[in-house]
């Protein structure tokens, strides 16, 4: 909010103006009987409280403490209730009153949150003023069922060559980023956010249990890159009580869901990191005497993560026949013109459900076909509901200890997500950054969410790199190798070099395609290893300036035709000759 001081002038507050508002408010005030169900605090501390009474309280209900803090009902016991306190528990004392609200926890959401740094309850942390948003969403939300979903089919470009080529991520997918500390997990997340600039994705970065200084660093980097224009940062730092750290990922998901469900937009949620959320949940459960299981985690720690990650979804696109005058942005489904035979209509016109909606693959064509058969077809049109077709992509982050991916929490989350990106310290220290082990990293959605152009040239990339890794040992032996093996080694080394990229510099997908094309076709094979990156940068610049029609064609057609490939090959060859002379 702009304060007058920020404009460099001094402003005087007009007291009479606000006095009239206050007088009006007092006049309109009507006293009411305050009826509430209350209990009394028996014990409080470490973020939890036990409350006597509240016989009608329900599980997960929101409670209000006398000092204004909110709580959530965690345990229902014979004469008391175990409560998790979201807020300042230092101001609560024994004997304080606790009120039932009859509601579940919810957070504010909406456009006003974008660009802000907030706590898990939606309160601002960036000192940029109060957030007044009319929209709220519940923290816990049942993930959409099978009928409401669509298979993932659109790419979410991270801007990182190693990922977009061999471990591509689609919109609506859950891809785990897993690795030891200091291997670049957060770096991948930030680069992905930065790469969404100019796109249509709303990003939510959720920092759980991190150092405040680290979060500040992330926010500043995002601001510098102009990413805060489309990003919300939710922070529950290491200094925040465990309940806030527990609730933070659900908060972030709720804020993203607003954009997905009411505006059909694409969203990205990064949970950094879920290991710390599990630890916070363990703390709460142990303090509230829930029986500990493996590694002292409570029995429902799997559900903690599965219900969060199931909320990542690719929603189906919904089409229907509506009267022509219905506005483009209408979400009113009551004015649909239904096929009179409903689900018994002939297959080429058949709607996909009893409401008359078309949402399966091919549904759009069926709707169009049906429209053509209507007598009054000129009075109608096929409408795409703008609140459908959105997505929520999740990039959860898990920190492993000493590479132990078979520990409890990592195995849990691995079994939930649609793929993993493994980051290894050995690669990191060998200079391969991002330190992605492409051999064991996987994306179960894979090629379905990849542009054809990229799919084609990256097709053999992984196999080449795998073969290279096998031969790497020989290179170190220093023995004489046959020509074919030597070629494979050279190619592999250069591809690894090519896949390195500096932080905060995501690559546009078209640049990636051209770059990997150059490598895969062998144009780099004769370059000295330390010249590869320089060559790449200059080559891309050269093509952008001198031959912009090449990337343009790839963009428009979605793939590279044989002719274009030949042409590109020529261009690169010529550039290389020049480069060779200058070098």
């Amino acid at each position, binding site marked *: 909010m*702009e304060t007058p001081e920020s404009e460099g002038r001094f402003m005087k*507050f007009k007291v009479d103006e606000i006095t009239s508002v206050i007088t009006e408010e007092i006049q309109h005030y009507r006293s009411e009987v*305050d009826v509430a169900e209350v209990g009394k605090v028996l014990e409080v501390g470490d973020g939890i409280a036990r409350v*006597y009474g*509240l016989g*009608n309280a329900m599980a997960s209900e929101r409670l209000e403490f006398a000092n204004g803090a909110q709580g959530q009902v965690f345990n229902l016991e*014979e004469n008391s209730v175990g409560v998790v306190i979201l807020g300042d528990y230092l101001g609560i004392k024994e004997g304080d009153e606790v009120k039932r609200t009859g509601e579940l926890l919810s957070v504010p959401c909406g456009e006003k949150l974008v660009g802000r740094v907030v706590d898990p309850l939606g309160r601002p942390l960036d000192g940029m003023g109060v957030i007044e948003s009319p929209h709220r969403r519940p923290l816990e939300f049942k993930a959409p069922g099978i009928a409401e979903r669509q298979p993932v089919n659109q790419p979410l470009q991270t801007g990182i060559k190693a990922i977009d080529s061999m471990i591509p991520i689609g919109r609506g997918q859950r891809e785990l980023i897993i690795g030891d500390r200091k291997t670049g997990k957060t770096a991948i997340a930030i680069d992905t956010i930065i790469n969404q600039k100019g796109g249509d994705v709303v990003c939510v970065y959720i920092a759980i249990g991190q150092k405040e200084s680290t979060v500040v660093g992330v926010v500043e980097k995002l601001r510098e890159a102009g990413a805060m224009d489309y990003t919300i940062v939710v922070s529950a730092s290491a200094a925040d009580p465990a309940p806030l750290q527990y609730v933070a990922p659900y908060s972030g998901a709720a804020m993203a869901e607003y954009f997905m469900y009411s505006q059909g937009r694409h969203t990205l949620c990064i949970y950094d990191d879920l290991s710390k959320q599990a630890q916070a949940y363990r703390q709460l459960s142990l303090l509230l005497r829930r029986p500990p299981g493996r590694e002292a985690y409570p029995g429902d720690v799997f559900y903690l993560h599965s219900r969060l990650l199931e909320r990542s979804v690719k929603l189906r696109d919904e089409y229907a026949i509506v009267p022509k005058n219905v506005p483009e942005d209408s979400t009113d489904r009551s004015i649909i013109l239904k096929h009179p035979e409903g689900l018994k209509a002939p297959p080429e016109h058949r709607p996909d459900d009893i409401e008359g909606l078309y949402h399966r693959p091919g549904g759009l064509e069926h709707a169009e076909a049906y429209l053509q058969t209507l007598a009054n077809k000129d009075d109608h049109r096929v409408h795409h509901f703008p609140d459908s077709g959105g997505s929520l992509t999740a990039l959860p982050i898990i920190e492993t200890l000493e590479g132990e991916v078979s520990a409890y929490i990592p195995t849990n989350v691995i079994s939930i997500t649609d793929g993993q990106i493994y980051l290894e310290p050995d690669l990191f220290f060998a200079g391969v950054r991002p330190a992605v082990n492409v051999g064991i990293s996987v994306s179960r959605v894979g090629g379905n969410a990849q542009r054809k152009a990229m799919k084609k040239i990256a097709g053999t990339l992984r196999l080449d790199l795998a073969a290279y890794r096998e031969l790497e040992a020989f290179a170190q032996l220093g023995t004489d190798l046959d020509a074919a093996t030597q070629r494979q080694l050279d190619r592999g080394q250069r591809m690894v070099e090519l896949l390195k990229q500096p932080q905060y510099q995501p690559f546009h997908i078209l640049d990636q395609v051209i770059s990997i094309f150059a490598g895969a076709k062998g144009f780099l094979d004769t370059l000295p290893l330390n010249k590869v990156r320089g060559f790449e940068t200059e080559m891309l610049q050269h093509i952008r300036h001198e031959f912009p029609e090449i990337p343009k064609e790839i963009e428009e057609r979605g793939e590279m035709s044989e002719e274009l490939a030949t042409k590109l090959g020529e261009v690169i060859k010529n550039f290389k000759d020049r480069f060779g002379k200058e070098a």
Partner: protein
Amino acid sequence: MATVSDKELALAGVYADSMLELGVARDEADSLLDELLELSGLLTKNVEFDAFLASPSVDPDVRRETIEKVFRTRASDLLVNSLQILNRKGRLQILHSVIEAYRLAHNELRGRIDVRVQTAVPLDDDHRDSLKRIIKERTGREGILVETVDDRIIGGLIVHIGDEKLDVSISRQLDRLGVALNERASQEIHSSDRAYWSETV
């Protein structure tokens, strides 16, 4: 309400419920309540006897004999037998909770309910009658009023019936008014920022 621990109350309820059942069967439920309340008063005054009953370092057999000697001729068999059972089970230290649990169970049986009332000035009989009438309408039970006077609520009253709290005090209305004013003012200032600011000279 929370003077006895909630966990103890659960345990005490087990004993209190069976005592009440027997009391009802023998038509002694009301007299047992009176006896228990008298006993409670006695133990509050006579701290050493209270400690004697509650202490785990006293030999249970010695305690058994003492209870027989002191109470058998002066109290109902039901009361003395109950005390002996509690002693045998080593539960005499929750005796106060048992008495409280019995009182609550008895209330329930007789259609009564504890009601705490806070007022700024003492209630008069008209007030009490109206209040009892309202309680009867709301809960179908007879209210047993426990009154406190607290002038911090300024006026009106606060009534606790079971888990429910009905607040018609002036202090609460002032709080609510304060919150409403704050919110409205904040809304105004943040929305139409210009109208409230003028240039200084």
